[in-house]
């Protein structure tokens, strides 16, 4: 077996981004923050995808994470980035654990649609409730870091990079463990897994909670990077669809794929919008079609090919 260079690769990438980030223009830093924050959610969806499950409702957790940050800010005046992130992950972990008891009994389109239904419940509540910001949402004050309140976005950018690296390394370790192997194994043959003495429902539940927490972190970091939360871009079904879209674009091949795919998506969307403001979706959609037809392994397969070539 060839040596896996994922973790050294991620570490180099982290160093390059964190150092390089100091010198790049603000617009690029923003794009990278949005891209890498979203990548956390994609990482969670990747774990589900490998298990044969697609959720069309993960904006539920993205929104919960984002709104947790906003509500902490508005009601309690909490601005610390770590507290915000921690609370968002606890909330999404809790909700994920509860809903997981239901969702673990469903597969395929039923799993996808039930996820969607739950996310639309949250959307409905947010839109209808004035105290939750209704359709406008909230603005979020800039984060502080352990009582330091630095200028500019660079500290948050570094936090996103470091957190992304940590999540990727942990998920990589997870995928190499027995629990991680229970992704492909469950997808391939649930009967066999049960007759090996392991509960398929439990395996799926664990993955579901993992993906919920990762997506919650993505929402929280995005809320801080953007400085606002709103139901339409974060909780509506289109936001869930976007997460699935980027997952397919990235490909399931590596824990690095979500970061690359998500950043490319962010840039693609921005440029498409500048180029053809009224039809940018066509460019984005066309790109997805091209990926599905020519790169079934997602954008990652291009990198995988390049890495194989220089071995």
């Amino acid at each position, binding site marked *: 077996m060839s040596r896996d260079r994922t973790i050294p690769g991620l570490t180099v990438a982290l160093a390059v981004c964190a150092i390089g980030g100091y010198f790049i223009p603000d617009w690029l830093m923003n794009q990278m923050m949005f891209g890498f924050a979203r990548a956390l959610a994609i990482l969670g969806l990747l774990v589900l995808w490998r298990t044969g499950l697609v959720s069309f409702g993960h904006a539920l957790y993205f929104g919960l994470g984002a709104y947790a940050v906003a509500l902490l800010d508005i009601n309690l005046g909490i601005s610390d980035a770590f507290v915000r992130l921690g609370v968002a992950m606890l909330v999404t972990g809790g909700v994920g654990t509860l809903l997981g008891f239901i969702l673990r009994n469903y597969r395929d389109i039923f799993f996808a649609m039930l996820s969607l239904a739950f996310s639309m419940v949250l959307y409905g509540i947010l839109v209808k409730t004035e105290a939750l910001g209704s359709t406008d949402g909230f603005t979020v004050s800039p984060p502080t870091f352990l009582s330091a309140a630095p200028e500019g976005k660079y500290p948050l950018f570094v936090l996103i990079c470091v957190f992304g690296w940590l999540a990727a390394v942990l998920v990589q*370790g*997870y995928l*190499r*463990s*027995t*629990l*991680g*192997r*229970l992704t*492909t*194994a469950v*997808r*391939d*043959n649930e*009967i*066999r*897994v*049960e*007759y*090996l*003495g*392991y*509960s398929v429902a439990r395996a799926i539940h664990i993955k579901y909670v993992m993906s919920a927490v990762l997506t919650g972190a993505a929402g929280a970091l995005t809320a801080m990077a953007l400085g606002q939360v709103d139901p339409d871009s974060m909780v509506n079904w289109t936001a869930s669809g976007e997460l699935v879209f980027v997952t397919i674009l990235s490909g399931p091949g590596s824990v690095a794929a979500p970061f690359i795919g998500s950043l490319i998506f962010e840039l693609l969307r921005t440029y498409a919008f500048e180029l053809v403001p009224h039809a940018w979706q066509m460019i984005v959609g066309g790109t997805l079609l091209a990926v599905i037809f020519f790169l079934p392994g997602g954008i990652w397969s291009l990198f995988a090919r390049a890495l194989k070539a220089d071995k």
Partner: protein
Amino acid sequence: MSGDPILQVIDLQKTFGAVVAAKDINIDVSTGEVIGIIGANGAGKTTFVNMVTGYLKPSSGTIRFEGRDITGKPPRLVTQTGISRSFQVSQVFTSMTVYDNLLTALAITDSRGFNALRPIQRPDLTRRCEETLVRYQIDQYHDSEASTLPQGVRKLLDIAMAMVSKPRILLLDEPTSGVSAEEKFNIMDIIMGALKADQVTVLFIEHDMEIVERYVSRVVAFYQGEVICDKPPEEALIDSRVREFVIGEEYPLEVREAGSHADH
């Protein structure tokens, strides 16, 4: 060999609507027995195995394993108590290689507590994996994807995977179905050789009477959900009801009696 039965099946019944798939089944199995389950298509053989292994809940009756009542327990718990099985259609991880199939099976079986979070590639598991591949003579298919395997190899892999939980009793649903006539004895020799080393009690469903005669110590014949005969093979295969309802009259008795244990 004898002593308390390892498996006790008492008054087992199963109905699917109007179909009675199992009726008053009573069987005691002793440790070390090799039992052949025979019967025509639809006789209720698979239903019986499904109930013992928790795949189906019986309509009534009791199943005891090593004295414990396991009636109606789900497959996962039945496996954990020490029973394992194979299916009429092999249940393997189709997208994985033979090696990964077995390694995954070993890792899942060894996943109590924090073990589930340990890397799957660890020396104790990989060594056991390689040994098992050799024991079941499928090591030359090490890196082949399971979906591409010949039927016989797939069956062997399936049984090897069923055995990683170190069951004390194993139920095989037609281990040689789909395997060519020439290969059958070879496959059965590998299976029985491997199982003997693990001292596991075996029940297997089989349509081929030559296989039954050669490998079993006891025959249980099913007909329309009922056990119509439960005897050693030399008596069972000449039983008139078995000949009428299971094997058919044309099965050549005399030839087999003389020559069955010598050749192959």
